[in-house]
């Protein structure tokens, strides 16, 4: 029965040493002592080679979902419409006409949406 753990052979130093060289060594040991800190170059090599032969996976950038693309185009369209409304008075069109154009286009949009 092995219900007792073996004693730790080289436990990490509890507090950092004052000497710079010893401090760097202490830091190195502390950072590499935990098992999850140890890298596996063979696994890394396999992962890199897999990404090399699968170009679609090689891109690390997140891809937009169709909903995200639609939302992006919708935002651009809204901004364009807003800029258009703001530009109308600068073209000498009266504010009443701007309201009328807005009402008509809104109405057309509503009708299009309901169909």
């Amino acid at each position, binding site marked *: 029965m092995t219900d007792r753990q*073996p004693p730790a052979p080289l436990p990490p130093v509890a507090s950092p040493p004052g000497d710079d060289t010893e401090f760097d060594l202490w830091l*190195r040991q502390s950072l590499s002592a935990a098992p999850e800190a140890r890298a596996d*170059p063979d696994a890394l090599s396999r992962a890199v080679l897999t990404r090399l032969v699968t170009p679609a996976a090689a891109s690390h950038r997140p891809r937009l979902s169709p909903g995200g693309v639609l939302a992006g185009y919708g935002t651009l369209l809204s901004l364009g419409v807003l800029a258009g409304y703001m530009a109308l008075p600068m073209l000498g069109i009266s504010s009443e006409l701007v309201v009328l154009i807005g009402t008509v286009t809104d109405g057309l949009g509503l009708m299009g949406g309901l169909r």
Partner: protein
Amino acid sequence: MSDLSPQDHARTLVAAMAAGDRTALSGLIRLYGGGIQAFAGRSLGNVADGEDIAQEVFLRAWKQAARYDPRKAAVSTWLYRIAVNLCIDQRRRRGVRLFLGLETLEAAAEPPDPAPDAAQTVEARNQLARLTPVLEDLPDRQRMAILLRAVAEMDTAEIAQTMGTSPGAVEQLLARARSRLRRDLQEGPRGHPRADSDTKTGSTSR
């Protein structure tokens, strides 16, 4: 082949990579993959992110192998420079995501390893658990410098070349990092602003 120094061997591998030899890429990963993955993992405070960055480093090395100039930098310096830049970019992106609420600090933190180990592992993890937030609290350039020294085992000149600064500036970064780590390990991180207070050191020293 056996009488080649590691640096000569690495240069040979990069030349072979430029010619399209994938086994040379595997050879380069065996030489530097472990160190770069450990460096990136510690730099980002997350082992999984370190793996992603290490993969990206070697993919970029593969793509840029033909442009590598051995007269400008050693292969290790070249690879670690790519890693440093990717880590800085990744931290910036994470900062934006945290700001926008797309990521939580808990999600960005190191996930616990499910495999329990011997007693010394518990002690090592405790030590690492104390160190990680303190390292995270360091300004970017101080953290990079101290990790290149401690994890990548670089000397001052190599760190300077990797970070694109002068050896004097690196010495300052290292001294500040050690001083702050010693203080914060005793008192706990103080949550200083992330903005690099030492950016000037790096930029004006060239």
